[in-house]
């Protein structure tokens, strides 16, 4: 039956080609489409790249061609049928040509190609958040099937918050791209770090008398049952006259290691003159990368204000710390890149799955580059320590949070390049030499989605499988459980 259906479908689709204008002139014009998918390389399993034609015309026909198939679609919004798209992309390349009708005659724009490369992890998760300062009435951590347009809520704060008892949710994180070991934080009302581990849900209070806060930015150890966290006392302030509207800074920050089996935390770094943040493991789990900034202001009640006064001079550099997972012993800190010496600030280190590349976000100052328009993605070759700005994927606006796919061929990153205000997700392919192809916007069913959607996409993380715990189970668990406290252990040094 299936064998019969496919040729019929092909015939039907080919029939659409009857809509391809038989007579037209070449306009020599490059098409203007939104999102800009011209000349991009995409995963062979990605959802259709629906787009809007940003040109004026009486009528529009878009012809998508693959090896032996043409698909003609009418209209300014081009929505490509999923099955046809996947079949055509399977040929390795599709060619797109847009025809515009003016005064009764058709003109053809220059065609563009979309190339297919390796598959991408089929799922990502992200937080949807309005780009606000303090309010968080409705936040969701959602997962998206990258091969289609299906989106599902992992957890939403509206399932728990009660009137003015609000709940902020953040920092979803998985071990080795699998969702059987995952965590996120629910702050304030009924708050705690929610962890799924060995099929059990836990709610933890990672704050101890010896640490400055509960765990914040997580990094799950790839081989052992540890999670490195930063601990932060974070504040935000508003720029009076700047396009970067908000500044987020830490008054204090350290690094801790949570041992899941022992249910204890221990200090990794807690230098009082350093703001340590954003831990990230090397794939072998024997090195922890992180960033840190020097600040030696006094610890008094004006510390927060002083930190903000010094905001322009707080700059983070990249560091690494050897770690023995068997003994939990830490080696001496090594400087990976002294960004502060270059009057720059490096944040969000993430190591590629093959351990060769270290990607980070670089801006002029500060730790929260999502609010810094000058922030760009950079990448270091860990074999020789050389690094470069990824000019081929950066934009004049913000590039910030990024995540490697499990095969190391794709990155997904957040950027405000489209309108300067709302964060959107872009994906780019990396070749063997560490060169990226033109990034493309996360495909959406509605081509106008990115322009009209009033939420920002935050913390994109790849997953090889969906989160299977239903949202209502997370909600019921958060509502019904007390946050379990953890013990504190001394740091072990080599």
């Amino acid at each position: 039956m299936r064998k019969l259906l496919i040729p019929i479908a092909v015939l039907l689709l080919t029939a659409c080609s009857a809509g391809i204008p038989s007579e037209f002139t070449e306009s020599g014009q490059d098409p203007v489409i939104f999102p800009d998918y011209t000349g991009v390389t995409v995963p062979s399993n990605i959802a259709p790249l629906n787009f809007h034609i940003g040109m004026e015309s009486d009528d529009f026909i878009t012809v998508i061609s693959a090896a032996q198939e043409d698909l003609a679609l009418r209209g300014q919004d081009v929505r490509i049928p999923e099955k046809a798209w996947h079949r055509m992309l399977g040929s390795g390349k599709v060619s797109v040509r847009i025809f515009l009708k003016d005064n009764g005659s058709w003109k053809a724009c220059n065609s563009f190609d979309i190339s297919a490369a390796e598959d991408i992890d089929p799922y990502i998760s992200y937080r949807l958040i309005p780009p606000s300062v303090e309010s968080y009435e409705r936040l969701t951590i959602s997962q998206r099937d990258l091969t289609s347009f299906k989106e599902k809520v992992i957890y939403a704060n509206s399932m728990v918050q009660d009137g003015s008892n609000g709940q902020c949710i953040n920092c979803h994180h998985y071990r080795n791209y699998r969702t059987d070991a995952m965590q996120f934080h629910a702050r304030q009302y009924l708050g705690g770090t929610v962890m799924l581990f060995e099929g059990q849900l836990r709610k933890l209070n990672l704050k101890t008398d010896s640490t400055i806060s509960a765990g914040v930015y997580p990094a799950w150890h790839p081989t052992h049952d540890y999670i490195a966290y930063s601990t932060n006392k974070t504040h935000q302030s508003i720029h009076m006259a700047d396009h970067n509207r908000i500044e987020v800074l830490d008054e204090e920050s350290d690094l801790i290691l949570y041992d899941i089996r022992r249910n204890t935390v221990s200090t990794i770094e807690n230098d009082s003159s350093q703001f340590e943040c954003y831990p990230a493991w090397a794939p072998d789990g024997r090195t922890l990368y992180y960033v840190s900034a020097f600040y030696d202001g006094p610890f008094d009640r004006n510390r927060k204000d002083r930190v903000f006064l010094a905001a322009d001079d707080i700059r983070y550099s990249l560091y690494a710390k050897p770690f023995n997972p068997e003994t939990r012993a830490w080696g001496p800190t090594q400087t990976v890149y002294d960004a502060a010496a270059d009057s720059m600030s490096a944040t969000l280190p993430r190591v590629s799955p093959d351990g060769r590349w270290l990607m980070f976000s670089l801006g002029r100052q500060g730790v929260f580059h999502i609010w810094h328009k000058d922030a760009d993605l950079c990448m270091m070759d860990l074999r020789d320590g050389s690094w470069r700005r990824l000019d081929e994927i950066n934009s004049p606006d913000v590039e910030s949070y990024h995540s490697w796919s499990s095969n190391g061929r794709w990155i997904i990153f957040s950027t405000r390049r489209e309108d300067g205000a709302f964060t959107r997700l872009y994906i780019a392919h990396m070749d063997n030499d560490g060169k990226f192809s033109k990034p493309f916007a996360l495909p959406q069913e509605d081509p106008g989605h990115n322009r009209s959607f009033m939420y920002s996409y935050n913390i994109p993380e790849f997953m090889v499988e969906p989160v299977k715990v239903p949202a209502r189970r997370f909600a019921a668990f958060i509502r019904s459980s007390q946050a379990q406290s953890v013990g504190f252990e001394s740091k072990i040094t080599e």
Partner: protein
Amino acid sequence: MVKEKKRKQDTGRIIRAAFSIVLPLAFWFILTVFYKDFLLKVESGSLFLLDWQPLLESFSIPGGLLGWLGTFFMQFLHLPWLGSLIWTVMLMASVPLTAKAFRIPGSLWCLAAVPAFLLAMGNMSLGYAVFVIKGTGWFFVPTLGYLAAAATVLLSGRMKGLCSRIILLALAATAGFWLAGCYALSAVVLAGIMALRTDGRKGSGIAAAAVVLAAAAPVVIYPLFTTYRLADSWTMGLPSSDIAGLMRLRFAYLLVFVSMAAAGLLAGKAASAPEKDTPVQICGIAGFLLLSWLVWYNDPNFMSELAMAGAADNCDWKKTASILEKAAQKASKSDERAFNARAKALERISDAGERDFITDKYSGKFFEPTRPMVLLKDLALFKLGVEGDKAFLYRDGDRKQKSATQVPMVAQIGKLLYFHYGMPNYCHRWCIEEAVEYGWSYQNLRYMAMTAMVMEEWDVAGKFLDKLSSTMFYRKWARQQKDLIDAQAVSGAAPYCDVRPLMCYEDRLSSDMAMVETYIMKHFTQFRSPYATAQYDRAAMLWTLRMQDIPTFWRCFYCYLETSNPKSLPRHYQEAAYMYSTLEKSSGMQDLPYDKSVKEGYDAFMKFSQSHPVRSLDESRYQFMKKFGGTFYFYYYFTRNQETF
């Protein structure tokens, strides 16, 4: 006897018809004429887009469709006569529907108007809660929800078969709940109650099924949603507020439900009640009117605030200032009466404590504007360029909101003040905070677009303008703004041309702690940059006069003289300079070219104050105001320690 009965029936019908027409007409007229600013405020806080996406999104939450319909109707409040007409017609429609659904006999027809009355009062008693109420389409949703519920009850009552009625109730408790939220659940319960009264033993089964369905259906379908708490299932679709004590709309709907449940229970008895005399109905109507008088929120300052803010939103600065002027004029007779009554009361009293008591008692009877009114008036005069001559000609004060809960000024006019005083990042901040808390609205999209335009962030401005282009009543404005962007004419067009010169300060990191007035005051008086413009220094002068700090005044005054180089000094600056230099015994400043009348006025004021010793500011304020009101020195001495919030 028969003739007499017929005559009475005819009279009853005439009265009923008259009230059915006169009351709604009067209600509509009052809303349109006297409450148009309230209706416009309600409308500006909502958003209906001519787009399928919001409709599709509405299905993600029980009651979402009703909310979507509510916002659809709320957009018509942009034309207050039309929006209020639609609402009035809905309320009118509820009366016969109620009578039929709950089988209210003609003899008790005024009972059928109870839901309409409660729903009307639910909205009209809100007052300041209008700034902090949450709920998509909240203004129309309870009315629409009630209409749907009553129609369901009516339909259920007309169905004969037990099975078909239970199927209907099951549909209402599931699909109905999905579309209309708790209103569908209340319909199920009310239909059960009606069945109990009208269907004998069969009715008991239906009633039991109804209760089970209303209780269990939300639990059963809860796993399909991720947008709310299970515990909130039975209130989905009701407006809410995070501010305690502001749950009147819920209360109103609860009363509707309880009264209709009672009507249902009494339906059988009432049907056999004898035909009542017309006076009973008149008493019922009189009761409605009396209750309306008691609960309808009608604070003049609130209405003036709304009118001033509405005018300021439209940059109609003359109107903004004139509203305060008219409010003071309107109150002049009652002020005089209060003054005379207080004088009489004080005549008999010698004890100081008792004098304070009397003064306090009467102080509320004098007209006094709220802080938002004062600040909006200042802004308006500043935009008109006459603040130096007129800012203190108006009544001043800090009258508290006549409300159980004080709504912060930042929620009322924060974004407006920040935008027009050239602090777009703070305008942006409060727009987005409001959008997160209460949902996107025409008003915050407008300010977000204007903020982006004044910051020359064209892409994001386009995004907000695109949204407004999908609305019925703001598309024209959005088109105009887009045309300005396309023509690269933003900086020269109003209101941007007045705002940009105020954006001449160094960037700094700060927080307003939601205290708008003190934050703007601090901004203009303490953070002047070397490249300050004349407009900035004018604003600084206005705020330094409000600050009542002498060294700050002189600092701002020198800057003002430097950047404005005025041919003649505005009157209030002269008054302040003369008074401050006299107080400081600063001979240099006493030689400024003051108007003769300024010197004479101040000297007369000092003389008068010596001959009329001030025992307390509250006691003497009105007396001094009659003689010296409209001067800076009156403001300086008699308007101290203003409370801002």
